[in-house]
Structures are given as structure tokens and as C-alpha cells.
């Protein structure tokens, strides 16, 4: 039987404006999350927020008799506001790891990660995973990371610890290249042969939509991690629907929580 884990907050720091890094200690029996999986987080014993909120695994470390899970989050509404106010030692309920993570293909020589905003979280965990376990099977990894401005560009220091080429970009040019991350990627794309390249992306919907447009008539493989409002996180409520292509072009939906959050970019209807 799976369980809801009771975690204890070890750290909950504001690392940039409205952006927090939370480290939660969990029982050793917590399963190793795959890259791209997420957890549902809820503060124990409070009535509001009622529903747990989904967050990607940013980092996960196993010690002898416990493990530590990191999540990187931006304060947006009620749920994340409450989380931001939590002190060390507070108990949080963690459900997970959940969902289908990124698929790793051994035959891809080039790995391109494309992240926008908090999309950096699952991609950093993926990059770490690729660094640790797959080092021989691919030769190059490029991490394109974008945000509105320097302030909002989170997680760059962590990327420096990985063996990958980081290309940062900001909309206003206050750090790295000036422009949208997808435009910067587009400029470089022809350097990579489509057959030998795997693109992994996570970020705001407009970014993913732009990426889908760029890749539409190409042969590049691309997996995207999506977000949608969730209630259960386990596939039961059908709340987290994402429109997918269907044979008869009638509307069809998949569940971000159970069928995703990672999907092939071509599977999604990008309206």
C-alpha cells in the first residue's frame, strides 16, 4: 500500500523575490522520484488551502536513514502564500512521487533542455539524472533557460554545477542573451541534427506553444512537462485535463497528473 508521507521542513528560503526553495525531510521509504515526476504538497492540519498543490521534484537526496526532497516554487496565490510562511520543523503532507516522468532515449547524442521560469525545476533534476547515470550515452547537453529579467532567472547557479552548456536569456536583456528562450533556441537549432537530438521543455504555456510552432514541421523529438490545476493528483477526479489530438478530430483529453505531466509535444492540441 502507498501512503501519504509526513515530511518535515528543513529549509524554506526566499532565494529571489517571491521564489522559494523548500527542503523537506522524508522517511527512507519514500520512493526515488524519476525525473519529471511531481509531488502533491499540503500543510498538515489546516483547513485552507484545502487541496494539495502540485510541485515538480527539483532535487532528491537519500541519506542512510532519511531522504530530502527539494521543491522550487513561486508565490502565486493562496496555497503558495501559505507555504512561503512556513517555518522549519513544520509538517507537510507529501503525496508522491506521481505521474509519468521524462523518457530517456539512449540513442540521442544531443540533449537540449528548454526552461522558462519555474520550468527550471524538473529540468534541473533531469539534467542531474542524465549527468549521473547516462554520461556515456550522450555527448552534449545544452540548457536554454529564459525569464523576463535577471531577477526572475532562477536556478542558474545550480546549472553551473552540472556538465552542460547553459544559455541564459531574458526578455529585457538584463542577463544573458536578449529575447525569448524559444527565439534563442531557434537561432541555434540547425546546429543539431533532428535524428540525434532530444528536446525536453517545461515552462509557461505561451513558451511551450511557441516551441510547438517552431518544431511543428521538423523531425526533432520533444517532450514537454505540462501544468494544469489539480485536485487529486492520482487520476481519479479528471480535473487536470489537457486537450490531445484524436483520430476523429473530436475533443479528447488526457490527465496531466496520471497520463503526464510529461507528454510528446506532438500529442497536445496547442490552441
Amino acid at each position, binding site marked *: *500500500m*502507498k*501512503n*501519504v508521507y509526513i515530511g518535515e521542513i528543513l529549509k524554506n528560503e526566499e532565494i529571489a523575490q517571491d521564489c522559494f526553495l523548500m527542503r523537506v525531510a522524508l522517511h527512507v521509504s519514500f520512493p526515488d522520484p524519476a525525473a519529471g515526476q511531481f509531488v502533491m504538497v*499540503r500543510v498538515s492540519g489546516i*483547513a*485552507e*488551502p*484545502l*487541496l*494539495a498543490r502540485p510541485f515538480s521534484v527539483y532535487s532528491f537526496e537519500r541519506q542512510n536513514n532519511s531522504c530530502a526532497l527539494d521543491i522550487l516554487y513561486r508565490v502565486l496565490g*493562496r*496555497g503558495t502564500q501559505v507555504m512561503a510562511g512556513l517555518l522549519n520543523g513544520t509538517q507537510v*503532507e507529501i*503525496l508522491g512521487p506521481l505521474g509519468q516522468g521524462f523518457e530517456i532515449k539512449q540513442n540521442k547524442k544531443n540533449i537540449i533542455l528548454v526552461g522558462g521560469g519555474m520550468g527550471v525545476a524538473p529540468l534541473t533534476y533531469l539534467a542531474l539524472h542524465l549527468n549521473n547515470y547516462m554520461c556515456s550515452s550522450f555527448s552534449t547537453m545544452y540548457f536554454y533557460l529564459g525569464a523576463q529579467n535577471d531577477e526572475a532567472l532562477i536556478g542558474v547557479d545550480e546549472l553551473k554545477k552540472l556538465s552542460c552548456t547553459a544559455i541564459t536569456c531574458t526578455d529585457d536583456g538584463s542577463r544573458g542573451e536578449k529575447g525569448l528562450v524559444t527565439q534563442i533556441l531557434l537561432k541555434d537549432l540547425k546546429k543539431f541534427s533532428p535524428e540525434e537530438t532530444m528536446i525536453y521543455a517545461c515552462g509557461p504555456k505561451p513558451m511551450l506553444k511557441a516551441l510547438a510552432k517552431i518544431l511543428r514541421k521538423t523531425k526533432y523529438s520533444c517532450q514537454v512537462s505540462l501544468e*494544469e*490545476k*489539480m*485536485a*487529486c*493528483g*492520482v*487520476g*481519479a*477526479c*479528471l*480535473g*487536470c*485535463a*489537457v*486537450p490531445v489530438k484524436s483520430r476523429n478530430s*473530436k*475533443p*479528447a*483529453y488526457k490527465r496531466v497528473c*496520471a497520463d503526464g505531466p510529461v507528454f510528446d509535444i506532438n500529442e497536445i492540441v496547442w490552441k
Partner: protein
Amino acid sequence: MAETEQINMSVKIGRLKLKNPVMTASGTFGYGEEYADYVDLNKLGAVVVKGLSLKPRAGNPPPRVMETPGGMLNAVGLQNVGVEAFISEKLPFLRKYDTKVIVNIYGENYDEYKKVTRKLSAAKGVHAVEVNISCPNVKKGGLSFGADPKTAATVTRKVKEVTDLPVIVKLTPNVTDIAAIAVAVEKAGADAISLINTITGMSVDIFTGRPHLKNITGGLSGPAIKPVALRMVWQVLQNVSIPVIGIGGIMNAEDALEFLIIGAKAVQIGTANFINPQATMEVIGGIKRYMEMTGIKNISKIIGTFKA
């Protein structure tokens, strides 16, 4: 330990015998398999599955859910795999468990209700049908079947005509006189009544000026609706003699006991599953502890003990 053995939590909903009065609410527990890793389904009084229609339904575009104070709004739009896929793909899994399987159904017209019921009656492993009459009657311009005593009674009669399974009719709270609807479905032959379904509501994003749900309106569920649910169950109980199943905002054993005390024979747990996948187990455990604490050996000694 010896004392615990003697505690009897079984209840009867007409002919339907349950090992305890706790079931899952339709649409909040998938087809059972989604929660089978978290809950020993054998321990449930019954599993009520997501509402089924004759043909598969895609459901509404997102966003479909939104948290509101003390609850949530949903506009899933009755997405389901369709009755045939349910029987071939989902039911075999549920048959492996020693629990009762109650299938929630809905239709756009009377004929659809009948056809779905017929198919389910022929399948092995279905113990009862729960008829959702909260959905729009397409012929009546979208007014729900459950909003009018006449249409509510007609659906009940049509379903009863084609099945020998116990028929539970699930009422919508979006009506002015819930007792009148309950009386009408009882007269039409319902074996039991369950209530409440979600209360229609909405919520607005003040920064975009748009509704939070793509569908604009959605169904409110969760702790916010419990007092309304309790009041409606009580009103229905005063007017019918068939068994009533209480639903709405039940988060723990105390909430469930309130419904049992006013006379509900059983309860369903909905939104609470999302907050705690083991909510049903905690409700069952809590009722048992309450019985031990108060020295009540048989749950029938709790049901209907309300002193108005």
C-alpha cells in the same frame, strides 16, 4: 480486542447489504483502480464509480477545477469511458474485491438511461445502480431531470422497468423543494435515495475578469456544503420511508456520524479523498472508535437517534 470483534457496522440499503456504511462518492474515486494503491478496497462498504453514459464522453475543456473557501468547484463535464468500456475494462478489476460495486449512471434522455441500465444489469459484478438526475435533460432545454418531480419520477420508473438491481436515485440540491422530488422518486419505485450532488456555483479571476472555470459555472463540493447537505438529508428523511444515503462535505468520522444520527443509512465520501487518499479508511476507523468509546455494539443503534 475481544470487544472490537463484537462491533457490528453492517447496514442494509434495502436488499443491498454493506459491511459498513462508508462508500466513495461518484466522480471522486475514479473506477476504483486509481486509489487501489492507497486504499484496501475490500474494507469499503461500497465503491461508487464515476458516472457512466451510453457512449464515451470527452468532458469539458480546462480549467475544470478551482479551490474556493472550504471547498472546490468542478466542471469535469461528466467525462467517462462509456458503459461498454467500463464493463470490459474496469469492472473485471473491481470484481476481484470483496466489496459492493455501485455504478453511477446518467443520460441525456430517458432512452439513454434505460440502455445504460440494461447493459449494466447484464454484466456480472454490479450490485446496484445509482441514477444521477442532476444532468441536463436535452429535450427540456437543459433543465436537469432532478429539478422537476415529474421528470425525476419518470427517470426512476424507466430505470426500474429494465432492471432487477437495487436502484438508488441521487438527487440534486439545486431545487427549491427537495422533499417533493424525494417523494416523487420514492413513489416511482426507487429503492433508495442518495443526496446531495454538488451545488452550482462560480468564481471569478479579478485580474483577468474571466471565470476561473472554462465552463463558467461548476459544482461546489467539500466541507463548505456539509450544513446544506445535512439539512436536505434531514428534510428528505422526514418525507420518505426508503433508505437515504448522506453525501456532502464529509471529511471525517464526526461528519459521517452527524448524517447517521439524523437517519442516513450510509454515507459517501467525495472531495475528502482528494485531500487524503485514505479518508474513507479514517472515517471507518473513526466510527468504530466512536462505537467503542460509547459502548455501542451495533451501528443500527446510532442511525436515526436524532433528537429534534
